[in-house]
């Protein structure tokens, strides 16, 4: 029988005992060194090592007494305990480990499935249940928020371009394209006075296009192409579906990462993946509508080409992260639909002139 020196705390008070440890075939005897009082008898099979210790320190506990601790400084004791058949570190059995890994994978797949497959479908159902007049109010409210935000970003006052002839030209174009969609939906477009080149579809048939876009367009067909694209979004209820989807993704990502770390990136990827499908759908149906009503539809392709050249340099890197498919894909798709032989211009020269001057008169956004 060998003996070792150690330190023992019984787990009832914080008193430290200098102890002598003796080993029998099946038990470990802990005796106070000075008085030779027996403090504890630990069965060797019940010993466990505390496995986070700094080098040179070994702590033991016994499963029968969860708070008592024995500290030794000699690793030789462990060799001897191992020979005596102690299971100092309990490892999980292989079936249990495999079960844990599998259930973790299942849990993760369930979350991914809920995010990518389940929630978008549920969100679309929820979005479909929202009455039309609710959507219109949501759209109007979203428009105010958006125009205010755009003005803030571009360092101007939030205002709309309102010259009468220009607005009339825009509305004429919308009415014309709407025929191609054969829909009872009512569209309402406003021109926000900001430099940015962009257009947005909002819930309830609300559309916002920027004065920057009107300046950037070289002919009315380009504007018609953008408008029909946004109208196609509206027809498919993409804006309201997007809003409901984003709501759920927010919650899901907060759950996954426990906080906002990485959530904006994750959200962009997650939301982007869906809107890319939606964008392709809007491109296609917008062009079909133009084709239906006999407006020249080369506008989309030329518009994208010039936009690509303008943004060359940085946006192309971000195609995977951006909400839109790459310009190349979209140009190819746009060029695949041929004009009708008798296709017309979207506006006559005079109307086009007034649309280009629509920002000669502006109206500030009212709250």
């Amino acid at each position, binding site marked *: 029988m060998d003996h070792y020196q150690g*330190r023992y*705390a*019984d*787990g*009832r*008070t*914080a*008193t*430290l005992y200098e102890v002598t440890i003796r080993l029998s075939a099946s038990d470990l005897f802990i005796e106070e060194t000075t008085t030779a009082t027996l403090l504890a008898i630990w069965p060797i099979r019940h010993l466990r090592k*505390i496995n*986070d*210790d*700094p*080098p040179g*320190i070994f*702590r033991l*506990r016994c499963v029968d007494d969860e*708070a*008592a*601790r024995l*500290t030794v400084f000699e690793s030789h004791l462990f060799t001897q305990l191992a020979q005596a058949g102690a299971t100092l570190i309990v490892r999980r059995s292989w079936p249990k480990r495999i079960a844990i890994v599998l259930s*973790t994978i299942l*849990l*993760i797949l369930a*979350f*991914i499935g809920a995010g990518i497959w389940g929630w978008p479908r549920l969100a679309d159902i929820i979005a479909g249940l*929202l009455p039309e*007049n*609710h959507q219109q*109010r*949501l759209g109007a*409210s979203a428009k105010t928020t958006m125009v205010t935000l755009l003005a*803030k*970003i*571009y*360092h101007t006052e939030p205002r709309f371009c309102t010259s009468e002839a220009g607005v009339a030209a825009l509305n004429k174009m919308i009415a014309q394209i709407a025929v191609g969609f054969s829909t009872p939906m009512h569209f309402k477009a406003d021109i926000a006075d900001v430099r940015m080149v962009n257009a947005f579809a909002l819930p309830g048939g609300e559309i916002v296009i920027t004065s920057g876009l009107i300046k950037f367009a070289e002919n009315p067909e380009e504007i018609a192409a953008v408008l029909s694209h946004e109208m196609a979004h509206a027809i498919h209820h993409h804006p309201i579906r997007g809003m409901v989807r984003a*709501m759920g993704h927010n*919650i899901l990502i*907060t*759950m*996954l*990462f*426990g*906080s*906002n*770390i*990485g959530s904006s*990136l994750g959200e962009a990827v997650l939301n982007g993946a869906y809107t890319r499908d939606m964008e392709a759908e809007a491109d296609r149906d917008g062009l079909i509508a133009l084709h239906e009503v006999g407006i020249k539809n080369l506008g989309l392709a030329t518009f994208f080409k010039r936009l*690509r050249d303008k943004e*060359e340099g940085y946006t*192309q*890197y*971000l*195609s*995977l*992260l951006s909400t839109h498919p*790459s*310009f*190349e*894909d979209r140009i190819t798709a746009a060029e695949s639909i041929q004009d009708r032989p008798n296709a017309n211009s979207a506006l006559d020269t005079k109307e086009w002139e007034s649309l280009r001057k629509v920002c000669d008169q502006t109206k500030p956004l009212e709250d």
Partner: protein
Amino acid sequence: MTKDPHLAVHPVPQSGDSHRISYTDQPSKLAKIILTNALLMIPTLGFYRFWAKTKVRRHFWSSIKLDGDALEYTGTGKELLIGFLIAATVFIPIIVVIQILQYLAVTDPDQYGLIAAVVNFSFIILLVFLVYFAFFTARRYRMSRTLWRGIRGGLDGSGFVYALRCVWALFLTSITAGIAGPYAEMPALRYIIKNSRFGTQRFDAPSLSGGPLMKRWLVYLFCLFVFFGALIIYAVMSGMTFQPAEETKPPVFLGVFFLIGLPGFIVLNLWYGIYRIRYITSQIIYGPVRFASGITTGSVLWIGFIYLLAFIGMLLAVVLAVSVLASIFSHPSGGSPIVGAIIIAGAILAFIGISIIVPLLLIRPLLKRFIETMVMVGKIDFSHIGQAARGPGRGEGLADILDVGGF
């Protein structure tokens, strides 16, 4: 150590009549833990964080020794996961209800506008309240999982009372334009100290008061007002807003102002913050024992400087690597999926870099420094410290969702 009367602890500790507190660990062991953690976080979509936290805590806890015996962390990843799941099931319905109300407020303002506004406002207040509540309960969990010589720590009292005291302090501080800050924060602080236990013996801080902090606090506040005041005057004078605009070139004055102002602001923050920590430490008693902290602003500043250097260097390296690779693989016909993959790989690398740098170059040196400069005066009779009751059964769920600090 210091001549400041508020921080003086008498007598100067002699070995023999006081307890030794030390920090020893192998940084390489920590590095291995956090690297594995970061790598496992990605494929598990963050779910590994409960086990990751547990492993890091086990390392830090076992590195701190008192009289030669190391602390022991007995919490488990499973407890943290369960705590999180419970908090999530409570929290998510609340958010869903609020989003529905927001929707109704827009679509039917006459009927729901007022209710939604009230609920929204109460939610913001509730959120502030919950952050403090979560902080307290998370601390309770951590203390109950901290063992020394087999004896558990603990935190009694109620998270509700603590959160109320904190919200009240916030209110008092804001209505006095910050001046009452140190006085206002003390009741909550005293509450958490008085309810902290090791075994059956409680900590206390009977003479903790805001008074000794006032002089430095007012200097701090004054500098803060001057800093932001100057900024506002500049903004008004030049008629600019803080929105980025492409035409306006970044003004030289503003650049210089921030170049000097921001580092100055950090130093100022530490100058007050470190003094506050030292003062609070000096007021804590545990039975016959008093504590003193010798941590200095300079040493913390140095740690922060090294950390910042590593952090910026790592980010620059990643950005550089991504730009070079992206320019090689991009071609004029538009965005290629390879470039997208490079960007995502860069983001993952940056995430791993941050996950390693923060614990290794910020938390560890700070903790080590704090422990090594800590002094205990007086002798505890450990035979009088009994075992404490077991703590809560599950982990800090709410704190995880609200992202309330703590490693």
